[in-house]
């Protein structure tokens, strides 16, 4: 049968399409629950408007003028463009497509290693884990970038590895997780070297070196390609900055996972250990090293759990196959030569992309009434009080220096064309350790809270209504309630007579 007739998507493509459709139908609210999405859109819009990158802060009264490394500038521009066309649903749908394509690639890798049945089971296990950090934010580009890197690295054709260099350059402008791509390359080089470790023969050593030459050259070129971004190699320092101890202790996504709540992760780790012990002979060394590295990362930060489990789909598939599941699976019972249908490896990803583009277009062109009805499936968290925003729009800001909740900073940037000067927002790395730790001390009512509020000249506060900090200030005669609803309270400092 001629290849030109192949239109039906292969199982990997179909899997990606299904993932995209399922997420689009059921995960609209979840994907927008994080405030970072909002400030990314805002800064992207500003960059589009002014036609230049933002390199300094101009929105806070605490870090005004401070240099800022907008390392995700390209993602932000894409997000802002999507938002201007199709609103928040457009941004969410775009990221769902990214996740769909990620799963397509991982399915393909797993399928190449152990067949479709085990690959499908591994994807089915990984998808619920992916939900733990599935947010409309640029880190999803790292999922896709890492999956692409794995796809290329697991390909026997060494020449294809050169594709990693442009991929790395693009990735470096989308998300700081580009370093992860370099680690993956290093892992595969190490794995290859261990797998083919020569004995004492000199010829064997030469062959061994020959086999590693291209991957090492690609790795070095990719390292240089990381520098192709507006901030150069400064980008490499960024992960160290954001995983700083104070941020890791106080920002939920950087904390160590709580294994009592994430009991499913506990089960996954136990399964990983047991399968590693039972069937280690099936793991090539690259996959073993990858499992160790991703396990290490998942233990350190909650935000890495989903990525670790998603990227370990091929390892999970190897384990599932080794348990003997392959014999009973309908997909695996078909031998390649018996396949009647000619399947396309391109039509699945293409269909996912087309579906995503069509839906975004629909949102763009739909009448306002339809659009707002559809937007209800992609709501912002209720905690962002529209009432408080309406009050501020009508009455103006009741002071000059605001003390705001961390998450609310993002929302204020998004909701106002000219937001009030903020105390803090989701760009913790820009604010730095001192401002962030002062913020943490104040919201925990440390003994020096009053002194710090004075030092920063705070004269009004916008905070979640039930937060301890807001409730305490409401009892204080020095503060007057200007607005209050179930979700937010606005206070201003009373003028001393």
């Amino acid at each position: 049968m001629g290849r030109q007739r192949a239109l039906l998507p292969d199982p990997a493509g179909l899997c990606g399409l299904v993932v995209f459709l399922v997420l689009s139908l059921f995960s609209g609210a979840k994907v927008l629950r994080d405030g970072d999405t909002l400030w990314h859109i805002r800064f992207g819009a500003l960059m589009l408007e002014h036609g230049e990158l933002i390199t300094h802060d101009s929105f806070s009264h605490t870090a005004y003028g401070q240099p800022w490394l907008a390392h995700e500038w390209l993602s932000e521009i894409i997000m802002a463009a999507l938002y201007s066309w199709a609103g928040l649903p457009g941004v969410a749908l775009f990221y769902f497509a990214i996740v769909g394509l990620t799963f397509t690639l991982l399915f393909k890798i797993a399928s190449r290693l152990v067949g479709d049945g085990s690959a499908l089971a591994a994807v089915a296990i990984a998808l619920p884990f992916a939900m733990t950090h599935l947010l409309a934010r640029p880190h999803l580009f790292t999922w896709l970038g890492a999956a692409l890197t794995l796809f290329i690295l697991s390909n026997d054709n060494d020449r294809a590895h050169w594709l990693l260099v442009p991929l790395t350059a693009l990735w470096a402008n989308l998300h700081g997780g580009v370093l992860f791509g370099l680690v993956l390359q290093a892992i595969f080089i190490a794995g290859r070297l261990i797998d083919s470790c020569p004995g004492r023969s000199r010829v064997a050593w030469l062959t061994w070196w020959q086999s590693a030459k291209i991957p090492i050259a690609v790795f070095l070129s990719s390292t240089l390609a990381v520098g192709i971004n507006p901030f150069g190699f400064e980008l490499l320092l960024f992960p160290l900055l954001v995983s700083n101890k104070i941020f890791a202790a106080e920002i939920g996504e950087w904390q160590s996972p709580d294994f009592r709540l994430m009991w499913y992760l506990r089960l996954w780790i136990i399964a990983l250990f047991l399968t590693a012990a039972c069937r280690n002979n099936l793991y090539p060394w690259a996959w073993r090293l990858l499992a160790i590295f991703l396990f290490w990362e998942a233990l350190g930060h909650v935000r890495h759990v989903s990525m670790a489990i998603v990227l370990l789909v091929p390892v999970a598939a190897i384990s599932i196959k080794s348990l003997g599941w392959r014999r009973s699976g309908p997909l695996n019972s078909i031998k390649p030569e018996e396949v009647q249908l000619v399947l396309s490896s391109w039509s699945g990803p293409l269909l996912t992309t087309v579906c995503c583009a069509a839906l975004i277009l629909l949102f763009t062109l739909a009448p306002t009434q339809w659009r707002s009805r559809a937007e209800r499936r992609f709501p912002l968290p209720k905690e962002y009080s529209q009432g408080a925003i309406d009050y501020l729009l009508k009455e103006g800001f009741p002071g000059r220096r605001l003390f705001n909740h961390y998450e609310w900073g993002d929302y204020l940037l998004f909701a106002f064309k000219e937001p009030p000067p903020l105390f803090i927002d989701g760009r913790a790395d820009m604010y730095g350790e001192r401002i962030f730790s002062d913020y943490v001390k104040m919201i925990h009512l440390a003994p020096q809270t009053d002194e710090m509020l004075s030092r920063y000249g705070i004269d009004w506060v916008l905070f979640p209504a039930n937060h301890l900090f807001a409730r305490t200030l409401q009892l204080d005669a020095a503060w007057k309630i200007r607005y209050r609803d179930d979700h937010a309270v606005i206070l201003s400092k009373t003028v001393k007579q």
Partner: protein
Amino acid sequence: MSSGLPTSVKWAWLPYPSGIFGLTLLLALIFTQGPKLLIDGDTYIHIRSGEWMLDHGRILASDIFSNTVPGNEYVAHEWGAQLLMGWLHRTGGLPAVAIFFAWLAAVSLTILYRLLERLRSPAWLNLTAVTSALLLAFPVLLARPHLFTWLFGAITLDLLHRQGRSRWLLPMMMIPWANLHGGFILGLALQGIFIVGKVLDALPADGWREAWRDRHKDIFVLLVSVVASFCNPFGVASMLHFLTVSSAGLNRYNPEWLPPDFQNFWPLRVYLAALLTALLCARHRPAWTSLLLLTLFLDAALSHRRHVSLAVMFLLPLWTELLNPHLRQTSEVTRDNGRQLQLSGWSGLLLQTTILVVTLASVPLLSKNSPELLSRHFPLSERFPDKSWNRIQNDLPAGRMFNDYNWGAFVIYRTSGKVPVFIDGFADKYGETIYQDYYKIILVEKEAEELLGKYRIDWIFFPSDAPLLRYLLATGRWEKSYRDDQASVLTRRKPQLPR
């Protein structure tokens, strides 16, 4: 010796490396880790409970220390340990308690080390593995009854590896264990795992029936052990109590029941990554017993940081099993210039026990001649507001006190229970409602003040930097009557009478 030494061991007195390790550990703990051993509040409640039992000649199984649950009965599953701690405290004060628990830790690790020696792994591997286990268990190396579970758990593991007639010691051991610490359930779990593991290992060759038949004696020993574990003043309730203590409602905030924080406790992260690497590199699949132990302890360690110590200690044989095939097998007997040294497995333990007896005997003498030396090496936990209490003790406010969870033990210890506390470290005694109300108050949830009213609290003894104090002062219904850097006292303002 049952290890099949090639020559007679009649004159053997030199200790194995395991004995020397235990001896070194004991001395290091006694001379350098006194404050660490005594840092936890529970130690002090156990001591006072034990002293009460010595005074009254009966088991303390109802509350005498609190203003929230006075007279409430509870399962005092550690009564034996409390009695011993009370007696040690009467004999030699806090130093005696700390020294005894240091000895328990040293002996437990000696037994596990000796087990590794018998499994014939190289000396450097044994030393590395046991030292790593010690470092990872160190955060919970405290003068508290759970160290009895270290000891009895280590003996159980040793006996289960030996098999033979020595397994009959297991039921006998369950009787003291069930009266010393609630962890005795681990002993039963270990026996169960060894039975199932051996059946699974034998299954491919022998089939189900044969595999089970070979384990009949082990099953009988397990059943006798279960019956023996009921030989405590609370019977079956003591076993079921385990479920209460580990319930989510009671350990939601308690640090030792929280999952490990892999950022701060990074050595555990390294340990688990190393274990995964060892499993991925293993030449043979480990025995089913080891895999079942791995499942149990991995789950326990990831769920609660207090179980990390058990995991790293009881997974020691697994390391040997994984790494031994990669390493050259070594002889059990150390050679010295071609002559065989006769080593003893008992002399190390005997020496440690001698040191225990000698130091315990010298504590009363030292406390008479140089009390400063003892109090410097074995001080009251530095977490406690001892200086603050000294200043306020003669002028304590009247009425019911609300206190910090960790300071409850301190107040009980300092006042011998004369000032009733709101809560102390025995969360299970207070039950889920009071425990959760306590946290609602200290986290200043909306109903915090209402709850203080519900419990008719008149004064608060709390760390000065707590948000609760700042909030209560802002309400205007509480006033500060004492404050220093560590502790503050707030008292409820009397309502103004209408004129």
